């Protein structure tokens, strides 16, 4: 009988590993295939042991022998009792609060386990070179995941999905970990030492060292097969987290004394909270999240309103417990924000992170429509000024960094475009005019009008040949189609599952 006669050889290898002190799942990892049932390996174990221990129908004996010591590779990570300890962790109760239908689970391994695994691979490859020639040993953490998935799924009432946004991580520790992994310092390739930034004994560095390490050197320093351990690993905390999700929309701001984000200004009195706070107030409960991060396509000055369809924004929602937010729920949030009277939100929806760059790239090139209420120095010149404004079509500006922001911006001259200008009288107002403009993003509108002491040229003052200044400014539109607009007439449920 040749060594490659697989079922028999499998049994031989399996027994060899069990005799050395491996647990049944570790032994299976070395001989099993994609059909191996790690969740409940009893049948697989029976198949492998029946032939070789033909005289012994009670295969439990095999394991009783190895019971006194923990598994020499996994330090009992894959043993039923350890898996059971993990499943019974009371912390998992809190994972039930997540409405996610799926989960994905991870485990952190002691470094000693990685070293032991490497040692065992060398051992079996020397002992059974033919058998292991083209054979992939199932990785320990993969086997762990397969062993615990079904049990976790039952416990959490969720399905396992490797792409799930809900991640559960079990941490383990091993009291002799430091002692056993110190050997890696001796084995460390001297030339690599400099490139390793922090801890050469970090899990990551141990893993990468083991991939390239010289086997002969390794054998000199590490016991092959791994020495019998006196202690098993311990199950530590379990961590869980839902990946962040993103929602997007457009906001309007109707107040002239409100910042976009919370402000701790020294000079200006802010009477009401920020746009961000007004929106967050109504988002937080719907998602039961740990934190939110607000981003938008530019921002308006605190005394500028944003009207029309509003300013595109998105919010990163961190560790949300609830992500099944319906189309209707989004509409309810919009209504709730509307009740603040000062902020309004539309087109609120989930958005894939891939589309988020649109909002930032758009910032460079987008156009904006402004409306300004302007005051002029001489009422008798009002119509002449209006005519002069309406006689020009577009203007190219040279703007030095405005005095208003010079203390916090670098010194520069920026070229900006005013694409169109349209001025008109306001009934009954002799010294006021209404000015609509379409401008390039990043144009300082107030400075374009009053000229910033001649530092923006040309200015509207220069153009009309008198003094003209902005009393009030509104953003009427930001020419960026983000996010897709939502038809409010359609009121079906829309549920998105993460």
């Amino acid at each position: 009988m040749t060594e490659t006669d697989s079922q028999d050889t499998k049994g031989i290898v399996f027994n060899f590993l069990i005799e050395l002190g491996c647990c049944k799942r570790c032994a299976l990892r070395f001989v099993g295939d994609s059909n191996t049932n790690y969740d409940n390996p009893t049948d697989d174990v029976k198949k492998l042991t029946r032939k070789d221990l033909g005289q012994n129908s009670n295969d439990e004996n095999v394991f009783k022998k190895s019971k006194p010591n923990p598994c020499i590779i996994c330090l009992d990570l894959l043993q039923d009792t350890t898996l059971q300890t993990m499943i019974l962790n009371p912390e998992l109760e809190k994972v039930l609060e997540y409405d996610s239908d799926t989960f994905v689970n991870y485990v952190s391994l002691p470094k000693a386990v990685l070293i032991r695994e490497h040692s065992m691979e060398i051992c079996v490859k020397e002992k059974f070179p033919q058998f292991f020639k083209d054979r992939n040993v199932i990785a320990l953490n993969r086997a762990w995941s397969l062993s615990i998935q079904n049990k976790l799924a039952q416990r959490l009432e969720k399905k396992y999905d490797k792409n799930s946004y809900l991640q559960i991580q079990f941490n383990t520790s091993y009291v002799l970990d430091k002692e056993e992994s110190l050997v890696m310092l001796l084995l460390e390739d001297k030339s690599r030492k400099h490139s390793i930034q922090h801890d050469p004994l970090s899990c990551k560095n141990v893993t990468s060292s083991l991939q390239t390490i010289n086997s002969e050197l390794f054998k000199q320093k590490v016991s092959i097969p791994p020495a019998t351990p006196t202690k098993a690993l311990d199950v530590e905390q379990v961590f869980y987290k839902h990946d962040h999700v993103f929602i997007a929309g457009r906001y309007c701001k109707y107040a002239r004394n409100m910042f976009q984000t919370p402000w701790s200004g020294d000079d200006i009195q802010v009477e009401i909270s920020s746009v961000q706070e007004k929106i967050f107030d109504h988002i937080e409960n719907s998602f039961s999240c740990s934190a939110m991060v607000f981003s938008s396509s530019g921002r308006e000055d605190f005394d500028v309103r944003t009207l029309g369809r509003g300013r595109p924004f998105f919010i990163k929602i961190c560790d949300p417990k609830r992500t099944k937010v319906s189309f209707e729920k989004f509409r309810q949030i919009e209504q709730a924000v509307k009740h603040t009277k000062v902020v309004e939100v539309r087109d609120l929806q989930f958005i894939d992170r891939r589309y988020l760059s649109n909002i930032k790239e758009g910032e460079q090139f987008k156009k904006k429509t402004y409306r300004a209420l302007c005051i002029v120095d001489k009422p008798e010149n009002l119509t002449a000024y209006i005519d002069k404004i309406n006689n020009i079509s577009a203007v190219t500006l040279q703007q030095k960094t405005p005095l208003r922001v010079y203390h916090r911006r670098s010194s520069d001259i920026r070229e900006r475009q005013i694409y169109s200008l349209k001025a008109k009288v306001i009934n009954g107002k002799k010294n006021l005019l209404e000015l609509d403009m379409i401008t390039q993003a990043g144009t300082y509108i107030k400075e374009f009008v009053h000229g910033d002491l001649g530092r923006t040229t040309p200015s509207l003052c220069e153009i009309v040949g008198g003094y003209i200044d902005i009393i009030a400014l509104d953003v009427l539109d930001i020419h960026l189609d983000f996010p897709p607009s939502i038809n409010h007439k359609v009121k079906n449920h829309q549920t998105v599952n993460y």
Partner: protein
Amino acid sequence: MEVEKEESEEIPSTSSNPVEDPGPSQARVETESDDEDIEIPSILDSITQQQIDEFRPFHERYFEKKYCTRFTTDTVNLDTCVRIHTNKISLIYLSEKHSVIQNQQRLQSIDFQVSKKVNRLKNAMFGKGKRGAQLLQPDSILCHLETVDGARYPVHACVYGKLLEINSRVIKEPNFLLDDLNEGFLAIILPDLRRHEENVKSLKSVEEYNT
């Protein structure tokens, strides 16, 4: 939380992407077609008549006017006007009482080479912190005014800070400094915030100056 992946596949998946997969005809995606419905509230109604009546031009609205008299002598008035923005950025002007203006002299040129090594026009700076900008003290000379009739007057910085800018129009037409006391500033200075109190105390208010 450091997550050790059991497999090499990349999370996250795109299958749960709400944008790609909006479900069967639930959220109709449109462009700007329904924008006409959006009402734009009146801009005039957003402010009060009082705000209109009390509106002051830009150079008054944001700036506090102060005067520096410490370099004036018995024979020559070298007073400067310092306008301090609400953000503390300070602009240096000649005072209307300055000898050049009082004597109705005209400038031949302005000399910005204030010492062998220092030329106020060679002022390179980088970034928001304006690194590399020339550092100024109250008695630092910003330039010398040279009149048509051969007189020469130093102009001082008056405050501690960094030189941000010399007025490019004044460089081109020196007499703009005398002729336009709004836009004809000489220099823009970013005051040293640690000495801002000191800066302000050393200057006179408009009332003090005119009595």
